[in-house]
């Protein structure tokens, strides 16, 4: 896993962080993963060792098909961070995956073409040791 990125690169997760490390390890194989509790069936996201739905829970990892609906989004037009400043304008949204979890992600699309409730599919931006999920309109 990479260390701290330089300011001109995309900021990445910081490790060690044992709750989210398995999620990011799976991204290296272009697998988008989430958790379901073996005891109560709760869909868990972001990833955790415990189940927030029941005290006896055991979240297990599953692969998502990576398809979902754009719940909401914004077009970021000002960001002081050097990496993002160079990308302006770009779209960030919340995606409701078909398996029942919601995640934040960048939406790789012309800002003028994006709309709420649009269907999107996961794609990947590769980095050393992990890939960042990016969603594209279907």
């Amino acid at each position, binding site marked *: 896993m990479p260390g*701290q990125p330089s300011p001109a690169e*995309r*900021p*990445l*997760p*910081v*490790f*060690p*962080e044992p*709750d*989210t490390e398995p*999620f*990011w390890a799976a991204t290296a194989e272009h697998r988008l993963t989430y958790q379901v509790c073996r005891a109560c069936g709760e*869909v868990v996201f*972001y*990833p*955790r060792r415990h189940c*927030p739905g029941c005290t006896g829970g055991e979240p297990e990892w599953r692969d998502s098909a990576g398809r979902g609906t754009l*719940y*909401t*989004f*914004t*077009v*970021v*037009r*000002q*960001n*002081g*961070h050097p*990496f*993002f400043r160079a*990308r302006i304008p*770009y779209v*960030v*949204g*919340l995606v*409701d995956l078909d398996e*029942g*979890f*919601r*995640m*934040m*992600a*960048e939406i790789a699309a012309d*800002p003028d073409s994006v*709309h*709420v*409730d649009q269907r999107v599919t996961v794609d990947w931006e590769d980095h050393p040791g992990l890939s*960042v999920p990016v969603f594209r309109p279907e």
Partner: protein
Amino acid sequence: MAAPAAAIAGIHEFEKRAAGGLSPLQIKAECAARALEDAGLTWADVDAVYDASEAGRMQGLTIAEYFGVTPRVLDTTAVGGSSYEFHAAHAARDIAAGKANVALLTYGSTAHSDRRAIGTGWRGGSEAQPAANMERPYGLTLVGNYAMVARRHMAQYGTTPEQLAEIAVTTRRHAMRNPQAVAGLADIGIRDVREITVDDVLGSRLIADPLHLLECCIVSDGGGAVVIVSPAVAAGIRTRPAWILGTGEALGYPAGGADITSTAAARSGKEAFGQAGLRPEEIDIAMIYDSFTITVLAILEDLGFAKKGEGGPFAAGGRLAFDHPGGPALNTDGGGLSSNHPGMRGIFLLIEATRQLRGESTAQVPGARLAVAHGNGGLLGTRHAACTILLGTG
């Protein structure tokens, strides 16, 4: 409703929006001294201290020494801009429990002098935390986070940019009646300080769609202090007490398919109004944390001033102006949008609500009897803290 157990007896808002070299601690101490004088009290009377550590790490260890007070109660709840409403709720509870008689709440910040880019700076941090690890790569700014709520609100209910803009128009109108706000806007470098129109708001540049520059709070220096006292102390003070009639606290975070247009205010408001035995339509003054226009719109709905989804039409037509019948009057000091936002605005909501109940606002609602101060801290679209305080003349 039981007799109120505590009242705001002393207030002070730092007059400037550019602190001229004072430190956040110096601002806090100056405001504390002025607020104690306002109540006719001194440092020696303070027996409870509430601090959000905005002036440095773990200030609970050092702030009482700096002021020169000896508290029996110490509370360091730090939940962003709503911290001061939480402090007021906790102070009322601590006083009701007999643990304190004179509670001191303070705030100080030099965000403007420090050139802090609060809304559009880097917020990803470098901590190895689960939520941060899942969001850091995507470059969502603070403005963008709130903008996602606005976008969903528009899609779900048909809320229009014009309706959101009305909130900024109203708060600027109120600010132009407030000499400290007018001087402050000039002092922080805003050219052409004047009333604005819906067209001005929608003509300002987009920061994060659909939020425009004039829908975002300013970044100022500033601070304030609030002194909350027991009924026995209130009986002897020279100011008119603003009684704490009800309080409610809640947190909001994204769980499953939660509707992000409904904020934690729906729960904190229900709790506070229930305790006070009041209904939203009875409220004269709505001091609602206006980090952005959408914050106000969603919270007005969640507190019950309008049905969910109907905040847009509710806010239209100047309804929230101090001189418009059918109110409530919104952020009569000019709000965070146009008067004072040094990063964590919560204390000013309590201060202006108290001014209104004393009859001392620069946009005074004649005979104002009941006010709500609602703080929102954190990020509305992901995780946020909400606290509702109901105040009355008693």
